[in-house]
């Protein structure tokens, strides 16, 4: 029994290493209230939630009218807590998961 617990624990830890972000993490997507802003976070391929915040800040600078009433950023991805390989992100980098959810617009 102890052996299985160690194996499972090791599997969870290894799968949560940033080395495997590209393979295991999904492309997180974000938008604003009226979908005039959108962002794709590609973990393991250069982009991050920090980049999203930075881009949204720039967007608000370019569109000051959005500062009033539409200055929230929404996640358009669903939270999948059963994906144990995302637990590190959910625990230590949970900002993106704390955002309010908004249905994604269907892409072409």
């Amino acid at each position, binding site marked *: 029994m102890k052996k299985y617990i160690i194996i499972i624990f090791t599997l969870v830890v290894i799968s949560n290493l940033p080395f495997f972000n590209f*393979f295991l993490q*999904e492309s997180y997507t974000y938008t604003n209230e009226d979908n005039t802003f*959108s962002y794709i976070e590609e*973990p*393991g391929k250069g982009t991050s939630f*920090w980049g999203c915040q930075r881009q949204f800040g720039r967007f608000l600078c370019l569109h000051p009218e959005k500062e009033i009433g539409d200055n929230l950023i929404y996640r358009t*991805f669903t939270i999948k807590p059963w994906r144990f390989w995302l637990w590190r992100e959910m625990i230590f980098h949970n900002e993106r998961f704390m955002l309010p959810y908004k249905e994604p617009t269907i*892409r072409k």
Partner: protein
Amino acid sequence: MKRKNIIITIVFLSLIACRKEKESGESQTTPASGLTLDQVKNWYQTDSSITIDWQQAEHHQTKNTAYWLVGVNGRPGFGKLKLGYRRLVFYKNNHNQITEQILEIIPDALYLQRVKTVSATDFTGRIFIFDRKHLFLGGLSYRNGQQAGSIKPASQDTSRLQVNNAELDCSWFDSNYVDSDGNAVIYSESVCDPIYLSGGSDGFGDGSTAGYSPVSSGDAAPVGHGGTGGSSGNSAPPPAVSNLPGESGPGISSKDFMKCFGNIPDQGATMKITVYVQEPWPGTTFNIGPNSVGHTAIGLTKINGSQTVTQVVGFYPDATGLDKMHAPSKVVNNGGDLEYNVSITYTVSADNFQKIRNYIADPPATYDLTSFNCTSFVYQACQSGNITLPDPYSTFGPASPPGGPAVMAPAGIGDSISNMKGQSNVNTNGGITPNSKGACQ
């Protein structure tokens, strides 16, 4: 407690096992008759718009008839999604004549997301039926493997359509989709809740439909090859199941991004190409590290007087999970958010700049982690503009074992650029990519 659970499980399984098999919905009976593939081939008149791989033909036998299913090219679009696949069915009608119909099978997107593998027993979605001249005949809608409604060509006033064998609470509504030939199909769909109690044929076709049922009698064939990697002929497989539709995120239209450079005249302009590299493990040649696999992006800048346009883009797989290894590609805006380790800049002529623009505007359709990745894209883009980048090759693997296969990778090109430290066009201090202008119409 454990024993109680076991008993409950057994009772539950027994109930499932005792369920009467769903009737196939076939009413016009035709004696089961043999239909060989050679007969079908001899009878079939080539349709130039359809490509058939006869090697992948599947034979099915139901209580009433035998039929052949073959996968064909083309993919319908439904609700702005390319979803589903197309098949041809051949069977003998009441008059013992071979008949052909085209099926466009479109699973419900959320159902596909949930089950990952389409099967006849729980199929949820729509099946559209066309005759051999691509005339829309009608169709069926399914929910959890049971017929939930029927589909007919839309009329001017659908409220006057006669609904046979439908419950009173069935309702019709008009909708549309784009078939595999790219034509818009406008139809009326009847949806009954909870189940459409059809007592007979839906009457599509020429009235002599022999009674094959696209998703009945345990025949998983018409809808059964999704996601399992089974043989599917050359029909388009269902899309990879990952997240909800749209969740993997659309890329940008690189064509629209490249259009912005046309707004600045070439005469007197300075044009630069910059390659930005985020190394997987900065300072090493490892192909995997704290930055996972790393990334290579390309930046284009055109300056003419006070006018400046910069676009920074990268090449990505349009998939999630392990599907990223080999997937359709997308181009993503990397402006303003990529923390790179090294970069290298080249000044190019207007002619070469245009060639690079053209390459990026029409990127390769497929991403492959080893054979054509983000670094390959940037390398090829630069090659098209007569720029030869530093050696981008790296031995694939975390520890770069000697003798391993070499691939273009961020680790390889990043290391080569780092080795050029001191040159005026090389930046080894890193930074953040400049903002992109965005799309232009």
